[in-house]
């Protein structure tokens, strides 16, 4: 071999192939099945791992370079935010409820995603998807950490942030995101990728990160807006990974199509149920609004989702099974969730409130067919109770859905006056669901969902035995973090500090 050879200029694709794809080898001393033991059991057939396409082709040098630039920008902004009391720039302190929910629910999910992608980055038997998943894994820990760092400054001044670590594992509503990510992580590597990489990232994160973060900016919270957008720029790579992965599975073998379809059906529904919390954040928790949940759904759900599923139709993939039910629910869920959070506000580590007169006008305008007819009367009832010196609380424990773990507070898709409730008997026990979608998910895999940890029964069992005060201690919920916004310490402090600012 002539060693001194002038190298020819390689294009990006060829260079990436050599730098990444060419690193792996076919094992000959050990069987592939010993090295990659989990790659077969879900029934996905892969004939040629090298057919995997990674469109972004980042090598580590470029990754370090560009990510470092993002990090420098990000930390400059949150340092300035902390030094300049940036928290007093938010429109009003009601907004903080949204970011409390974010820290308690979403940041732990980012972390779970980091670990999950490390696992699939190990388990896939091809270097292309391995490296793509590893990069997503390291990105996801970035997201968890930048969020904790951004919230750290809010924690110094407001209630409801400081116990996020124990509340992640114990408080009832955090079981919604927790069970979603635990569900994905306990699935096999291919299903995990459909769950998180495809359904969550591609179909749904735009709804979480784009309009909501634009709203955060509009409400004066540059720290949150910046981590949101900075995270979403990684998501652009992740979404593309999710889409490539699904195309790869569909192209490898026709037998994969029904399996993939089943996962799309499941995870689209699971994701939409999870995002009902984001719906409430968008419609109720941004004091200044950019767009309603309905408008966001029309752009990022309907328009973008339709484009995607039209594209996938060439493989024989159909739009997700419960798409119509989701569409019918969009004008309702944010109101139903917010009313639910409001009546159980004694048990949440964030505040809630009744909408103001201007909120009501906006909600009427954005939800002309549903808000005034179905939800305004309930809000008016709550407002009247409050004005009469009472409180609108529901000390009855919510019945949680066995699958999504939200209280069964949603209505029938075709009758908004009827609460929706489904039951399935399995091995002598009765299980409850909020919807056909969740019941369907259960019935596909009952042996999995019977294992779910349900926080409400836990409250009734040893050692708490229904003692609410003991429960509050167990979930680290201080009374100052819960309850009505109007009478909260957060509100009083925020207004006092703001006044101090304007008189100085």
């Amino acid at each position: 071999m002539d060693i001194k050879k002038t190298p020819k200029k390689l294009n990006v694709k060829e260079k990436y192939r050599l730098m990444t794809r060419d690193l792996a080898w076919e094992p000959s001393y050990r069987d592939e099945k010993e090295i990659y033991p989990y790659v077969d059991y879900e029934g996905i057939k892969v004939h040629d791992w090298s057919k995997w396409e990674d469109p972004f082709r980042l090598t580590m040098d470029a990754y370090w370079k560009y990510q470092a630039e993002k990090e420098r920008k990000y930390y400059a902004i949150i340092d300035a935010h902390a030094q300049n009391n940036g928290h007093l720039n938010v429109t009003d302190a009601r907004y903080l409820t949204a970011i409390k929910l974010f820290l308690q629910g979403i940041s732990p999910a980012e972390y779970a995603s980091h670990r999950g992608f490390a696992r699939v980055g190990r388990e896939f038997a091809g270097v292309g998807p391995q490296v793509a998943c590893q990069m997503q894994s390291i990105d996801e820990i970035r997201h968890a950490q930048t969020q904790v760092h951004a919230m750290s400054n809010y924690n110094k001044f407001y209630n409801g942030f400081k116990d996020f670590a124990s509340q992640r594992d114990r408080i009832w509503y955090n079981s919604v995101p927790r069970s979603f990510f635990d569900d994905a992580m306990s699935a096999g590597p291919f299903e995990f990728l459909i769950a998180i990489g495809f359904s969550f990232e591609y179909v749904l994160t735009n709804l979480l990160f784009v309009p909501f973060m634009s709203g955060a900016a509009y409400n004066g919270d540059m720290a949150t807006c910046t981590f949101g957008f900075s995270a979403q720029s990684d998501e652009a790579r992740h979404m593309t990974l999710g889409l490539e992965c699904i195309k790869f599975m569909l192209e490898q073998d026709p037998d994969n199509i029904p399996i993939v379809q089943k996962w799309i059906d499941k995870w689209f529904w699971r994701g939409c149920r999870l995002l009902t919390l984001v719906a409430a954040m968008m419609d109720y928790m941004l004091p200044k609004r950019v767009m309603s949940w309905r408008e966001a759904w029309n752009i990022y759900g309907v328009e973008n989702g339709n484009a995607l599923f039209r594209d996938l139709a060439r493989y024989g993939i159909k739009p997700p099974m419960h798409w119509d039910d989701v569409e019918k629910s969009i004008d309702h869920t944010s109101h139903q969730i917010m009313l639910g959070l409001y009546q159980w506000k004694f048990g949440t580590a964030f505040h809630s409130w009744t909408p103001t007169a201007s909120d009501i006008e906006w909600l009427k305008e954005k939800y002309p067919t549903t808000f005034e007819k179905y939800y305004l009367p309930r809000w008016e009832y709550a407002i009247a109770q409050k004005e009469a010196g009472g409180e609108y609380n529901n000390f009855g424990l919510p019945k949680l859905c066995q699958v999504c773990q939200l209280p069964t507070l949603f209505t029938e898709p075709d009758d908004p006056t009827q609460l929706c409730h489904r039951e399935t008997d399995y091995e002598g026990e009765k299980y409850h669901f909020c919807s056909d979608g969740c019941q369907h998910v259960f019935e596909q895999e009952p042996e999995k969902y019977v294992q779910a940890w349900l926080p409400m029964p836990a409250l009734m069992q040893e050692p708490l035995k229904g003692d609410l005060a003991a429960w509050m201690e167990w979930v680290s919920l201080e009374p100052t973090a819960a309850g009505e916004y109007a009478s909260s310490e957060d509100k009083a402090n925020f207004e006092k500090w703001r006044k101090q600012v304007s008189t100085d």
Partner: protein
Amino acid sequence: MSKVFIILQANEETRSIVEAIEQDNPDAEVVHEPAMVKVQAEGSLVVRRETIEEEIGREFDMQELNINLITLSGNVDEDEDALTLTWNS
């Protein structure tokens, strides 16, 4: 036809990138929202390195897009000269 889009953070660096995209995609629509700018088009959209370089007056690496990118929609094809987004439908 389905719409593809690319969303960038709204800042000085992306002004010229958005202008370059507009030049290469005369039918694209540009939407400004708080802190972000969205460029969308029917069927496909192309972001070309050369046009960006003309706008900013220096060399540009397509992977630099990562820094200010918020999100995108469509099948992605990227090489050293361009990033293309398409929907097949």
